[in-house]
């Protein structure tokens, strides 16, 4: 188990004070905590699960756990690391159940979830929509551990140390998984580009 090293949130220095207010049940404090962090939690969950409804469920459950366990939160740790740990655990559980569901029922992702993802995609207003979709799709086909490492490090932009803390891994294990994940994505992107090149 890795011990938290950071003592505050550089991006949100008022977080410890906000948590203190939540613990004292001060009106509006928990609402503020949710409003400030739910976007990031959703972003992580959606990038792994690629389903808006599932990601929203994870956000809801994550903050209920935060609410119930806030008294046990170690103020010396970075709040977002703790928050991401809860999110990753819930996302990971949902990912496993989704994988199981797909494997046992032999059903592809529902049209609804694909539409939802597609809608999100359009709204993202990206320069290379196809490429983003390809990378996300490839990330989705990685083994769960590599997928989580890739999403946390390369998409959520956390440091290797933070990823190691959240996933309870050593930094070397994070790097090894990262290396495999990037090689996989690079190899498959090359294949796709080759196919498109031949088509054009």
């Amino acid at each position, binding site marked *: 188990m890795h011990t938290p090293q950071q003592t505050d949130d550089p991006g949100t220095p008022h977080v410890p004070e906000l948590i203190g207010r939540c613990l004292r049940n001060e009106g509006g404090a*928990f*609402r503020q905590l*949710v*409003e400030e962090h*739910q*976007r990031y939690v*959703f*972003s992580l969950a*959606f*990038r792994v699960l690629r389903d*808006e409804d599932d*990601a*929203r469920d994870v*956000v*809801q459950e994550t*903050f*209920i756990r935060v*609410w*119930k366990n806030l008294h046990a939160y170690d103020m010396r740790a970075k709040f977002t690391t703790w928050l991401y740990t809860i999110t990753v655990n819930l996302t990971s559980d949902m990912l496993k159940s989704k994988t199981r569901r797909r494997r046992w029922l032999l059903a592809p992702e529902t049209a609804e979830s694909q539409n939802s993802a597609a809608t*999100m995609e359009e*709204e*993202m*207003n*990206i*320069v*290379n929509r196809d*490429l*983003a979709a390809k*990378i*996300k799709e490839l990330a989705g086909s990685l083994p769960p551990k590599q997928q989580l490492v890739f999403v946390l*490090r*390369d*998409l*959520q*932009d956390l*440091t*290797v140390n933070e990823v190691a803390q959240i996933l309870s891994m050593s930094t070397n294990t994070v*790097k090894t998984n*990262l*290396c495999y994940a*990037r*090689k996989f*994505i*690079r190899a498959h*992107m*090359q294949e796709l580009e080759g196919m498109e090149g031949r088509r054009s």
Partner: protein
Amino acid sequence: MKCHQAQDLMYLYRPGELTGNQHQELEEHVGSCPACAAEWKAVLEMEKRVSEVRNIEPRLEDAVHLTRTILRAAAESRRQPARLLGAVPEWTAAPAFRIAACITLFALTGAFFLQTAIDARKVATLEGRLKSQSTTPNTIGSQDIQRAGLFLSGTDRFTALPESLGVAAAEISQWQREPAMATMLATLFGRQDRHGTTMIDYLSKKHPRLASVRIDDGFDDREREILASDGEALLKDIETLMQKGGVHHDR
């Protein structure tokens, strides 16, 4: 640096993933190896594309509604009924407490089963002793008092006996026809005090004249006279002993 080593390291391209030395060695190798240089270029191109995805954050639709749902669910979770035993103190979560609780539970369970096993063994021993003592009157004492006990069963032959003796004898006779009562009687008569004296031995010594009466060939005048004079005293002694539960060393 070999090509395969370089092609592993080049995938750790983001800041902080390689040490200074690794970075320098990689750059030197890529500078001198066209194949690895081409690969390195492709990897950096991939990173550029991944960074584009990184910069596009998935949009959370209707965040206000989600916040409201979360706050409502959190409030409901607080309103849930209290636990049966109330709030568990925080110190119960300490590893030392949990280990101690496990050990205590284990010890209590062990003690319970051990006591049960000991009790079962005691019961088995007692049963064995009772069986060995009570199978037949022959196993419990002297021949003389055995006969004294037996003659009491033939009450119809002793019309001259005092009435109380006759009633008592009839009861004993009744017991002897009942296996359970006979067992109890035999057990009682065979019970020893701490000097090893059984009730039968005690009665035999206390009423030597009765012990000489033979019951298998009828009674002569002398025997009738003994039964009439000592029979009641014998029954009284038996009754006393039965009340006391056995022969006492301080008799």
